[in-house]
C-alpha cells in the first residue's frame, strides 16, 4: 500500500517536471478543480462568455471548472462562495469577481480553508485593499487577480470617436465636437476605469466637449432614454451631436436606437462606440451603425485558467506580478471577419489556450492580444476534433 502511494507521488512529481519542461497535452496534465462563482445572471452575455471561455480553457488545460451563478444577487454570491469553502471536498482553486466588494468574506473564508483564490475582473479596492494588503502577503492563499485595462479601452473608444468626428467635420457652431458619454454606473471600478479613459482622451483633445456623462445602469433601454433626452436637449441648444461614447454594447445599441428615432443615421450623421464584443454589437458594426466595440475581456475566463494552470505547474504568474492586467482590443469593420465567427458561435474551443501559457523562465509574461488570439484560432472543425 505504502509503496503504491509512493509510486503515485513519484509519478505526480514526474508529470510536473515533465510539464514544466515543455508544452504538454491536456491529457498529460494533472487535473485540477476550479470553482467559479459568477456574479452574473444566467443569459447575461458577458458572464456567460467568461464562464464559457473558462470552461473551454479548462478542457484544453485539464482543469475541471464548475460554474456557480449568483444571478446578480450578492447575498446569493456570498452564500454560494461560502458554501464552496465549506465543502468537504474543497476545490483547488476558487475564482471570484469582487463586484461591489461582495466577495471579500468569501476570500477571507477561502484563506482560512486554504483554498487558493483568484480574483477575476474585479479585485480588492479601497479599505479592503488597505486592510488585506497585497496578494500573498497577509492572505497567503489569495493568489492575485486578473483584470482588464478598461481605462485604455475607454480612451481608445473615445479616440476612435473623436477621429471619426474630426474626419466628418462634425463640429458644432462653437467649433467644438460635442459628444455624449453614457456610463454604466459611477461606482464600480469597471465603470470608473472606462469613464476615466473617456476623460483622459477628451482632455487630450481641446476641440472636444463631453456635453454630458450620463449613466444608464449598463442597460440598453436606459441608454436609449438618456440618448433621446440628450439629443432633444442638444437640438434645443443648437448643438450638433457628433458621437456617443457608451460604456458597453447594450448601451451603445440603445444609443443607436435613440439616434435613429431622433432621425439620425448612426455611422453617417453620428458615431457610436461600445464595449463588450457582443454579438449584437458585431451586427451593428457589420451594418455600419457602430463604429467599434472594444473588449474581449470575457476571455479573462480562459486566461485565468491559463494562469492557474501555470501556477499549478509551478510557473507562478506572481513572478512578474500577482496583478495580471489584460489589454482589451477593438473590433471594427476591419477585423470583424477574423473574430466575428468565434464570438457569434461561442466557438471558444477553437482557441488553443495551451499556446498562451508562459514560456519557461518567463513566468508571468503572457501575450493575450487580439493578434495572438487570431493566430491561435484553429478552424472550427479542427478545434472540435480533439475534444470529447
Amino acid at each position, binding site marked *: 500500500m505504502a509503496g503504491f502511494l509512493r509510486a503515485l507521488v513519484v509519478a505526480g512529481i514526474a508529470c510536473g517536471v515533465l510539464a514544466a519542461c515543455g508544452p504538454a497535452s491536456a491529457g498529460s496534465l494533472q487535473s485540477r478543480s476550479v470553482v467559479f462563482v459568477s456574479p452574473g445572471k444566467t443569459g447575461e452575455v458577458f458572464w456567460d462568455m467568461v464562464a464559457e471561455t473558462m470552461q473551454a480553457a479548462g478542457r484544453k488545460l485539464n482543469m475541471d471548472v464548475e460554474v456557480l451563478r449568483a444571478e446578480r444577487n450578492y447575498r446569493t454570491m456570498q452564500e454560494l462562495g461560502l458554501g464552496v469553502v465549506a465543502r468537504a471536498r474543497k476545490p483547488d482553486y476558487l475564482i471570484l469577481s469582487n463586484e461591489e466588494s461582495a466577495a471579500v468574506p468569501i476570500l477571507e473564508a477561502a484563506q482560512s480553508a486554504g483554498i487558493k483564490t483568484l480574483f477575476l475582473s474585479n479585485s480588492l479596492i479601497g479599505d479592503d485593499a488597505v486592510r488585506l494588503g497585497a496578494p500573498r502577503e497577509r492572505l497567503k492563499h489569495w493568489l492575485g487577480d486578473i483584470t482588464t485595462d478598461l481605462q485604455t479601452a475607454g480612451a481608445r473608444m473615445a479616440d476612435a470617436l473623436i477621429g471619426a468626428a474630426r474626419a466628418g467635420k462634425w463640429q458644432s457652431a462653437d467649433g467644438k465636437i460635442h459628444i455624449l458619454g453614457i456610463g454604466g454606473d459611477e461606482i464600480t471600478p469597471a465603470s470608473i476605469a472606462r469613464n476615466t479613459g473617456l476623460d483622459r482622451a477628451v482632455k487630450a483633445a481641446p476641440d472636444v466637449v463631453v456635453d454630458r456623462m*450620463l449613466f444608464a445602469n449598463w442597460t440598453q433601454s436606459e441608454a436609449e*432614454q438618456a440618448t433621446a*433626452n440628450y439629443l432633444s436637449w442638444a437640438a*434645443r441648444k443648437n448643438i450638433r451631436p457628433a458621437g456617443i461614447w457608451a460604456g458597453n454594447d447594450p448601451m451603445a445599441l440603445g444609443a443607436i436606437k435613440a439616434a435613429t428615432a431622433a432621425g439620425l443615421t448612426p455611422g453617417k450623421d453620428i458615431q457610436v462606440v461600445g464595449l463588450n464584443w457582443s454579438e449584437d454589437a458585431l451586427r451593428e458594426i457589420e451594418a455600419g451603425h457602430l463604429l467599434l466595440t472594444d473588449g474581449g475581456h470575457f476571455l479573462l475566463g480562459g486566461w485565468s485558467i491559463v494562469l492557474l494552470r501555470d501556477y499549478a505547474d509551478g510557473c507562478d504568474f506572481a513572478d512578474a506580478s500577482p496583478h495580471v492586467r489584460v489589454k482589451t482590443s477593438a473590433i471594427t469593420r476591419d477585423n470583424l471577419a477574423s473574430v466575428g465567427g468565434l464570438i457569434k458561435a461561442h466557438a471558444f474551443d477553437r482557441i488553443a489556450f495551451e499556446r498562451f501559457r508562459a514560456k519557461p523562465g518567463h513566468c508571468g509574461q503572457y501575450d493575450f492580444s487580439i493578434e495572438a488570439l487570431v493566430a491561435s484560432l484553429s478552424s472550427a472543425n479542427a478545434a472540435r476534433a480533439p475534444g470529447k
Partner: protein
Amino acid sequence: MSASGQGTAAAPAASRSVIRSMIAATLPVLLLVQLLASAGLELSSFWSQMKQLDGRVARIAESRAQLIAEPLWKMRYTQVASVLAEILQDESIAAATVYDDTGAAVASVPARSAGHGTAEVERPIHYSNGNMAVQAGRIAIGYSYGTLYAEAGKVLERLLVVGLLATLATLIAMRMSANIFIGKPLSIMMSAIQRSKQDGRAYEADIRSSNEFGQLAQAFNGLQLTTSNALERLQYLAWHDPLTGLANRRSLTEQLLLLSGKAHAPDSLVAFCFIDLDDFKGINDTFGHEAGDKFLIHISERLRGAVDAGDWVARLGGDEFVVIRPEVASEAAAQAFAQHLLQAISAPVRLRDKQVVPRASIGLAVRRADDPELSHLPALADIALYHAKSKAPGTIAVLNDALQHDYRRRRELELAIPAGFAEGQFEVWYQSQVRLGGNELVSLEALIRWRHPDLGVIGPAEFLPLIESSGNGSRLTRYVLTDACRALQRLAAAGHPQIRIAINLPPSELADQSFADEMQETCARLGVAPSSLELEITEGSLINNIASAAETLCRLRRMGATIALDDFGTGYSSLAHLRRFPLDKVKIDKAFIRDIPGSAEDKAIVGVIASLAGTLELTLVAEGIERAEQAEAMIEMGVVFGQGYFYQRPQPLDDVLAWLADEQAPWIAEGEASIVPTGASLVSGMAG
C-alpha cells in the same frame, strides 16, 4: 312733600338703570374690540403663516432643486419626475415644473385645483461635481394659500364664537360686579332716601367699603345728618313761635288731637285758657315794637313759670296765649288755675325803666277729655274771652251755656247779614222828636231794625257791632240814608215838609270823606234838601279821628245838615268837644232822664247841661222821656225838645204817616200805646 317725593322716586325706577346703560354702552365696544383684536391677531397669524408657507415652499424648491440637480443633469427625467411628484404630498403645493437649461419643461406634476390665492416660487437647479458646476435648469413650484384661507376661516369662526362667549362672560361678570359694586350701594342709599322720605328722619346708608361709593355713602350720611338737623330745625320752627319759643297755633291743633287721643281718664277735665293781653297795642305804641316783643317774652316766661310740667303753653300770635291743663279736678279748680295765671301775668314788668302792669283777659273753657267737641276748645274759650274782653277786661270769663248761646246767636246773625241786605230784612223805623210843651213833632230819628225771618225783629244794639265788624257799616248807613230821604219825600208829600229826619252816623263814616259826597248825591237824586237831614254822632267817634271828623262835620254842615251830639253825658262829656266841633244839637243821654224827677243829682246835671247848651247856643234834646212828669221837669229846666216812649215808640214810616194824618188834634198820652207796633218793645234803640 311725600306725594311729590314718591313721584320723583318712581321716575328713576322707570328709567333705564345706570348699570344697563353702562353695559349697553360698553358691550358693543367690547365686542367690537374683541372681534377686531382677534381678527387682527388671526390676520397677523394668517400673514405669518403665508410667509411661513412661502418660506417652506422656497425651502422645498431648494431642497428639490438639490435632489433633482443630478438626475436633471444626467437627463434621468423619469427620476426627476418622481422626485418632483413627491412634493405633491404637501397639500399646499398645486403644481411643480422642472425646466432644463434650455428652458424646456422636462418634468411636471399636474396642477391641483388651485382655489384662490396662488403663488409661485422658482429656484435655479445647480449641478456640480468634482469637475464642474453648472446651472442645470430651474424648478418652479405653484402653491395655493387655499388651505390657509380655509384654516383662517375656521379659526375666525372659532374666534367669533369664543369672542361672543367671552363677551357673554364679560357681560355676566360686569352685571354681577356692577350689581355688587354699584347697584347694591345705590340701592342701599336709595332705600335710605325712601325711608327718610317716608318719615322725614335721617337714615344712614350702611356701606362699609372704602371705594368711591363708600366715600359717597359717607358724604351722603353727612348730608343726611345735616338735612336731618335742618329738618328738625324746620320742624321746630313750624311748630314753635320763634319769639318766645312757645308752641304755636299749629301745635295747638296737634296738641288737641293728642289730648283727645290719650286722655288719662275719660271723665277727667281739660282746662283751656285763652289769654289775651289787654291794651298790648298801647304798649307797642308807647314803648316800640322791640319793647313789645320783650314784653311778650316776659309774659311767656311767666306763663311757663306758672304752669306744671304736664301743662301746655302756646302763643297763638300777637298777644294771644293759650295754656292747657290736661287734668283738672273741677271747673272751680280750673278757674283757680286761670286766676293763678292771671296773677302771674299781672306782676309788674320793667320796660324802658318804666313799671308796666300787664293786664290780660282769660277765656276759660273746661271740657271732659272724651268730649267729642274737644277740638273746639279754642273756639269755646274764645267765646268766653270775647265775653270777658267785651264785658269785663282783665277778668276771667268761664264759658257757660249762656255765653255759648250768645255766641251761637251772634254767629248766626253774622252769617245772616248778607242775606239780610239781599232780602231787605233791614227796616228803618222812625221815632219822633217833639217840641216839649206843645208836643209838636219837629223831627224823626231813623232807627234801624232787622226783621229776621226766624228770630223776629232784632234791635240795633245786638246786630250793629256785627254789621260794623263784618265791614257792612257803610252799606247800612247808606241804606238808612236812602230810606230817610225817601221818608222825607213822603213826609213832604203828606204835607209835612218841615219835619226833619236824624240819622245816626257811625264813627267810621266820620273818618270817611265819601259819606258827604254820598249824601249830596242821594239828596240830589231824591230831591231832598240836605238841610232836612240831621246827623247824630257820638263823642267816641270824635275822639278817634278828631281832625278828619271836624272836616267831615264842617262839610256836612255847609251842605245844610244839622249835627247832633248823641248820648251826651255818658262818655267824655267834653266841653271842649262842644266848642271845637261844629255842633247844632246836644242829646242828653236817657240815663240822666230815667230817675228824674226823683234824682236831684240828675236834675242838677241836666240843668247844668241845659244852661251850658244855652250858653253855647246849642239846641238841647232830652232822650228817654217815658213819663209826663219827666217831660214837665225838662220843660222846667229849659230843655226844648224831647224824645221817648212817652211820646212815641220807633215805628215804621207808614205808621208815622198814618199817625200824622190822624194828628190834627192835640197829642194825647193815651194814644201812645195804640200806635206802637208789635215787637217794638224789644229794644229802646240807640237813641231811644
